[in-house]
């Protein structure tokens, strides 16, 4: 590929994220980068990775007709992430976590990475608290969406924007 990408591969050999590929490719296609679907389709890597689905589609397929309430989830992310390769995240879903009332799962979606789903966390009543921390990769500044599935089949959803200074890998 481009000189830029080869340089990046050497420099960030160990930690370079797939996210980087997206950033660099986006730069190459210019204004069209905003059009998510054509961009993903144009990337053989993305197809091979099963990334043809947009984050909206992924969420709609999962939630179907179920009720989705915005808010309540506490989504802790830095407002500005200097390094898109390692962005600390803590998500808290308020819940009693009893056998009848608990958070079944929590999914984290990226709106700007090549692949929308970042992780699925599954809790049990033994979890006590539906709180999880992890470190995620962000290709560029974007919204992160947390979607929690409750025991009664309804969903909670929260979105937070993160500005990424050094997107993915120094691009």
């Amino acid at each position, binding site marked *: *590929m481009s000189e830029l*990408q*080869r340089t990046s*591969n*050497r420099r960030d050999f*160990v*930690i*370079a*994220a*797939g*996210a*980087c*590929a*997206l950033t660099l490719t986006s730069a190459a296609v210019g204004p069209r980068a905003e059009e998510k679907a054509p961009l993903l389709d144009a990337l053989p*890597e*993305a197809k*091979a*990775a099963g990334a043809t689905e947009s984050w909206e589609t992924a969420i709609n397929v999962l939630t179907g007709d179920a009720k989705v309430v915005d808010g309540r989830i506490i989504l802790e992310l830095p407002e500005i992430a200097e390094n898109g*390769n*390692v*962005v600390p995240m*803590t998500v808290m879903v308020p819940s009693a*976590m009893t056998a009848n009332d608990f958070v079944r799962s929590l999914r*984290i979606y*990226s709106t700007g*990475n*090549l*692949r929308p*789903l*970042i*992780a*699925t*966390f*599954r*809790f*049990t009543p*033994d*979890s*006590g*608290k*539906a*709180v*999880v*921390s*992890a*470190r*995620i*990769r*962000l290709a560029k500044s974007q919204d992160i969406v947390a979607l929690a599935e409750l025991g009664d089949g309804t969903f909670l959803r929260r979105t937070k924007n993160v500005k990424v200074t050094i997107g993915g890998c120094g691009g």
Partner: protein
Amino acid sequence: MNKPRIRLPDNARLGDIIEVKTLIGHVMETGLRRDADGKIVPRNIVHAFIATFNGRVVFEADLLPGISANPYIAFHMRVTTPGEFEFTWIDDTGNKIVEKTPLLLV
């Protein structure tokens, strides 16, 4: 995968909800990157993490390439009995690491 690191509180009591911090060394190769010859480096990530306590699943995670290298995962558990954690990480090459850690109560 490197040997995992587990951090449990050292003053846990029955009835507490404790935070369990886990970290394992892994490259989390996304499958999108190309090597110097322009060939795609095959995806190899830790895609599954399972935590059980006395044989009961407490917490599970399905991870994708959007998780950073050396995945750090912290979750919670309500302590109802003394016992032992068993943590399992599985990567795309089928490599599986199992770590057992007793929970000491005060």
